[in-house]
């Protein structure tokens, strides 16, 4: 098998690779989706409530700083191996950028605009849904984009605890000392990350309200 060049190798394993890629997308997709569902509301919460702001950002920061390999290792005694713990760890990683960007996005809406809204008689909820969220959307999208891209890379490590995905090909390749196999896992991962980044970037532009042009590059 080592005699095949990379492209021939990929061609010979295309079915398996497609399967792994789909799996990869599923894991990261689910993890990011969950992170959005929790992270955006939490980001909004901490933009409104100063008391809980630093504890929550602190906790989210801690998860971000634990090396991913260690976190995957630590999760095994708690949740075992396989799909669920992998998604859970990836979810934890995705959380911080989403929380942080939501917070920053909402927090950086010009006070005068909110003031005008309040002064006209908009309720807090109306201000949130009609003013703050639309204006923060590009920044929130930026956070989601970062989370997703990081997660696509990190998800390869999840293969170690049996999550599947393109990481499986990489680790198999390492143990068999097959460069082709490592590359066959790594290259699609990179391509996936790049194309998802582009895609989300386009989505971000589309979500940016027409009236604002300057907020697009505000991601953190």
């Amino acid at each position, binding site marked *: 098998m080592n005699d095949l060049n990379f492209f021939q190798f990929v061609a010979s394993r295309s079915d398996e690779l497609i399967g792994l890629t789909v799996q990869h997308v599923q894991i990261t997709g689910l993890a990011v989706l969950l992170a959005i569902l929790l992270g955006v509301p939490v980001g909004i919460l901490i933009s409104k409530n100063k008391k809980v702001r630093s504890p929550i950002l602190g906790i989210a920061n801690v998860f971000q700083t634990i090396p991913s390999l260690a976190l995957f290792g630590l999760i095994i005694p708690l949740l075992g191996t396989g799909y669920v713990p992998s998604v859970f760890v990836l979810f934890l990683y995705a959380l911080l950028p989403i929380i942080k960007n939501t917070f920053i996005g909402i927090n950086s809406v*010009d006070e*005068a*605009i*909110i*003031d*005008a*809204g*309040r*002064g*006209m*008689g*908009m*309720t807090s909820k*109306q201000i949130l849904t*009609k*003013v703050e969220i*639309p*204006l923060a959307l590009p920044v929130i999208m930026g956070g989601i984009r970062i989370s997703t891209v990081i997660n696509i890379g990190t998800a390869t490590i999840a293969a170690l605890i049996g999550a599947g995905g393109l990481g499986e090909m990489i680790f198999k390749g390492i143990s068999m000392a097959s460069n082709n196999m490592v590359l066959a896992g790594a290259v699609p991962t990179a391509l996936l990350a790049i194309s998802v980044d582009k895609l989300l970037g386009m989505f971000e532009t589309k979500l940016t*309200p*027409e*009236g*604002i*042009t300057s907020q697009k590059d505000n991601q953190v």
Partner: protein
Amino acid sequence: MIELVNITKSYDGKTNVIENLNLHIDKGEIVVLIGESGCGKTTTLRMMNRLNDPTSGTIMIKGEDYTKISKIELRRQLGYVIQKVGLMPHLTVGKNIEMIPELKGWDKKKRKDRAYELLELVDLPPEDYYDRYPHELSGGQQQRIGVARALAVNPDIILMDEPFSALDPITREQLQKELLKLQDELGKTIVFVTHDMDEALKIGDRIAVMKDGKILQYDTPEEILKNPANEFVEYFVGKDRLWKSPEMLNANDIMHKSLVTVGQKRSPAQVIEVMKKKDMELLFIVEKETSKPQPPIGYITRKNLKEQEDHKVKMSEICNKDFISVHQNANMVDVLKIMEENEIRYLPVLDDDKNLIGMITTASILNIITKAVAVKEEENK
């Protein structure tokens, strides 16, 4: 219509930004709040729609304690033009104006008709502006949208925080007229904050001059002009108005106040010394050199002194006692006429008791002109 009773406001719990303020505003009148930056105009305005709550005191709107109705309801009854404009950048001009009508459930046609009507009112052709975004407008145009937005649901009371400050004089005047018309036709009650005394005098039925969180005087424009309650009001009214009408400037405004005089017992050598030091050609002689104003005895020029041979002679003996002076209230036009007709470059200014209190020179007039130009330039910015 609006009644503020014993209002005190503190943001930090220590210093009172507003102190024991009382203000009664009748239905259909335009009340102007005016005062220097930081005196509490915005704070006062924002307490009327409960964007700020007073620390103590009560506010009545339409005869009722305004805490009895919900903040949201209250604010929708009061139009509000905020100082920083605050248009929603993600919404078109039309959608900005229609925000509250939409939240109130007006149908689409009614909203749009209203927005068109208001755009006409603030002189921005609706066909051109309805679909634009705020960032595509100049500061002045944005301000006008801010005004239009505040009028959207036709509130009886409108609070306006320096709504015309970013407009050029012509547009500003036009909108001032529109505002007066609006109030005339629709009987709106308007609370209007400004820095500009001209604007206040033009549109105010009553003017509240504020300083350090207090109202110093609350009166009609005439009363404020003719009978300012205290020095600050006088200064505040005068300072701004002065430059705009030269006939309002008097000798007192244009004279040098730091006066150099010499006592009558001085010798020629001493006086020459003073002249050299102060770079003056002419000095007025008084009885004693004190800071207290006293009547001038006469004047002496450098030329007089140089021609003088007797070195022991006193100023009182050689000074020119025949001189022209003006009263401090003489207006600038007269002052200039006197100086021109008599070909003099130094004109002493006297108070009611004929004491010398200042000196008008060509330099001091030049000074005034420079200041007036500077004020004008600042305005034009």
